């Protein structure tokens, strides 16, 4: 039998209040693609940070090629040929690609020789089919390109073990396919690839072996032939997860939101929305699919009063509310769960209590003429935290300390507490694990049952198919297709998202 390249035994890591890794064993073989599957907080990233030298273990041994190693810093790991591509890229944005790669320092000369670097990088890129521009500045690159820079950087140090932390989280399906091709080439070349994920389809598509983690412990390792969805989910979550929600048939309600031929510009001053028309009825979830950057943000912001509409109208219950201020939209029952939870939705430095109050502080039950009514506010916040099962250590904890799933619950709690008539949600499950996603979805379905109109903007087609009554596809700022969910299938949606086969869409629509 082949000797493992990496052997981890009894890995143990404790953070204040959390046992992140509890006695974990793991073998990684050359030429294999090994998936680490688990929910958020199951300890996958921590384990890999131990292996890449970013964290130091509290216990356990790391063997590389059978030899015991101690990693005091990432440099030690890099020297052993272990490289990690983090979820948040560790690139210096104002630097060029070549400078970013030079930082990692395989060539230890004092003076930088740009020409040689450029040639070396181009050669590496060719070898693995990674298109890369050494002189481009990193901030100019797309997310997929940045990831390529990270990978090339690791290869440049001669990494034999490449660790990727949720590599597809930020990629379009096409970019993900490209990445998978590269990873297979690298494995065929004798490298070991470890990728962290919580998506089962990626495990099926890519992994030779999969190790599942739950609560800081290994729950099992399966090889390709043994893969079984039910088993994997059970190993990961510890219980069964529904694959389809029961939904009530849609009673034809009154139209709540009616957008007619809306035109809006994006932050760069180019067309974000072009003649977009859309209706959402009471108790209806309209799912908007599309690759990010095709007008999702502009649509959400136009409808919530955050972005000026240059032409066209937006109506709520027949009232023309085009270019009303956000406060006026809120007063009319519009709620918004934005894509950027901590940047737009919540104030990271304020407490749970204060964030829950943000939309209702002027209501008479919480405020007198001058002062806030602390007791009433606290009582309501306690009620919301209990009702929505938000895990907080105290109401006075700053919200930036909360995990992604609970941040989203908090945001939804605040928005749902306003009893919205129209709810606009953007990428509601992004970055959430299976359990948290299900909880968020159930909240949205409850809201629908209360006859709220929901505009759901998402990149995740499964999510849209599970939740929506009608599906629309956004491409180049237009709605290029709209049909009941029963008539939608993933393939058709995918084609529309890529800009082909739509009724009104054409490929040049993006380049305005």
């Amino acid at each position: 039998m082949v000797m493992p390249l990496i052997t981890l035994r009894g890995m143990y890591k404790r953070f204040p209040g959390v046992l992140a890794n509890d006695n974990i064993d793991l073998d990684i073989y050359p030429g294999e693609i090994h998936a680490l599957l688990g929910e958020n907080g199951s300890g996958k990233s921590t384990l890999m940070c131990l292996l890449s030298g970013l964290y130091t273990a509290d216990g356990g041994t790391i063997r590389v090629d059978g030899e015991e190693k101690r990693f005091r810093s990432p440099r030690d790991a890099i020297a052993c040929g272990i490289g990690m591509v983090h979820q948040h890229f560790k690139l210096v944005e104002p630097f060029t690609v070549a400078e970013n790669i030079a930082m990692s320092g395989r060539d230890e000369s004092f003076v930088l020789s740009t020409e040689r670097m450029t040639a070396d990088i181009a050669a590496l890129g060719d070898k693995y089919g990674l298109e890369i521009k050494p002189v481009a500045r990193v901030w100019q690159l797309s997310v997929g390109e940045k990831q390529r820079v990270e990978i090339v950087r690791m290869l440049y140090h001669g990494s034999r073990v490449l660790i990727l932390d949720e590599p597809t989280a930020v990629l379009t399906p096409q970019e993900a396919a490209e990445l998978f091709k590269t990873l297979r080439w690298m494995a065929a070349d004798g490298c070991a690839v470890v990728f962290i994920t919580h998506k089962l389809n990626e495990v099926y598509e890519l992994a030779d072996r999969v190790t599942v983690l739950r609560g800081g412990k290994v729950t099992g390792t399966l090889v390709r032939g043994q893969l079984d969805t039910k088993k994997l989910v059970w190993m990961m979550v510890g219980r069964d997860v529904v694959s389809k929600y029961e939904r009530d048939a849609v009673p034809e309600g009154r139209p709540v939101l009616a957008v007619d031929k809306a035109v809006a510009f994006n932050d760069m001053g180019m067309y974000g929305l072009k003649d977009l028309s859309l209706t959402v009825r009471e108790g209806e979830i309209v799912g908007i699919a599309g690759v990010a950057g095709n007008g999702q943000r502009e649509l959400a912001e136009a409808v919530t009063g955050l972005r000026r509409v240059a032409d066209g109208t937006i109506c709520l219950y027949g009232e023309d509310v085009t270019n009303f201020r956000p406060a006026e939209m809120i007063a009319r029952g519009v709620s918004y769960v934005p894509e950027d939870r901590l940047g737009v939705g919540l104030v990271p430095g304020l407490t749970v209590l204060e964030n829950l109050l943000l939309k209702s502080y002027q209501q008479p039950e919480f405020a007198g003429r001058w002062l806030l009514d602390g007791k009433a506010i606290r009582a309501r916040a306690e009620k919301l935290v209990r009702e929505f099962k938000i895990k907080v250590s105290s109401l006075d904890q700053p919200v930036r300390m909360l995990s992604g799933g609970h941040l989203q619950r908090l945001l939804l709690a605040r928005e749902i507490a306003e009893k919205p008539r129209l709810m606009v949600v953007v990428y509601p499950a992004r970055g959430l694990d299976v359990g948290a996603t299900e909880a968020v979805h159930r909240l949205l379905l409850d809201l629908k049952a209360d006859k709220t109109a929901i505009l759901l903007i998402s990149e995740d087609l499964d999510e849209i198919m599970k939740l929506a009554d009608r599906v629309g596809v956004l491409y180049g700022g237009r709605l290029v297709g709209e049909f009941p969910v029963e008539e939608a299938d993933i393939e058709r949606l995918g084609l529309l998202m890529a800009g082909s086969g739509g009724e009104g869409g054409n490929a040049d629509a993006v380049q305005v």
Partner: protein
Amino acid sequence: MSEQSIVISIFAAAVTAGTPILYAALGELITERAGILNLGVEGIMLVGAVSGFIAAVASGSCWWGLLAAMAAGGAVAFIHGLLTITLRANQVVSGLALTLFGTGLSGYLGKSYIGMPVPQAFKVEPLGPLAHIPFVGPVLFQHDVLVYASYLLVPAMAFFVYRTRPGLILRAVGENPAAADALGYKVFTLRHLYVVAGGMLCGVGGAYLSLAYAPSWLENMTAGRGWIAVALVIFALWNPWRALVGSYLFGGVDALGFNLQVLGVAVPTFFLSMMPYLFTILVLTLLMAKSGGRVVPPGALGLPYDREDR
């Protein structure tokens, strides 16, 4: 005095008056490149000036004075490093406190030295044949050795920052410490190192005042030059060459005021001594207006680094 010699003397005075600012600005530049904002430059310069002076008096040598100024500057800057890098205190608060501390400390230490002559100052030493080049010679090459050293320091620093591997890492630490950390560079150590190095340069700037420019000790003798240096780093867009140009520009405004007074131009002295500061405000305002607010400092400037932070 002929018109030409007046122009030459103003230009030459611009270089001498600009040199202390230049040293301080280079010190602040390299500190900020590492992502640490040090608003204590004024205080560090004062401590440098007084320690340099005391050491020169005690030893009888201006070189010991210079060394003492560097050591003192580095030591005071290290306090800032401890507070802001290790303890992650607010950099603005720490820097301001350092200026207050430096001003007080230097006043106290220098009390008995006020008005005393320095036994050996850095003297003007014309630089061989270069000094005889018409116009350029008297402007650039009839100065003391610290001025000449600054001529070497600017290109050396520019080369270091932009063309060498340690320079690349320095910029990375200031732009995105997490990225440097993930590659195994010791962000905390490097930041401490550059803060201390920057403090040493600020100390030299102070010593230049007390050992070459004045040369004597006067309480509060920096008179805001430290603040001008901080502003200058922004004006220079964190580039040593631009810092050089900026320093001489400010030195020139300073010298111009002095020369106008000598020539008996009827401008109130208050206004003349105000000029460098007014000029600072003007230049910064124009720079901001022209660039449309796109003066881009090092990405992590002013932010404490914490590995476990999310």
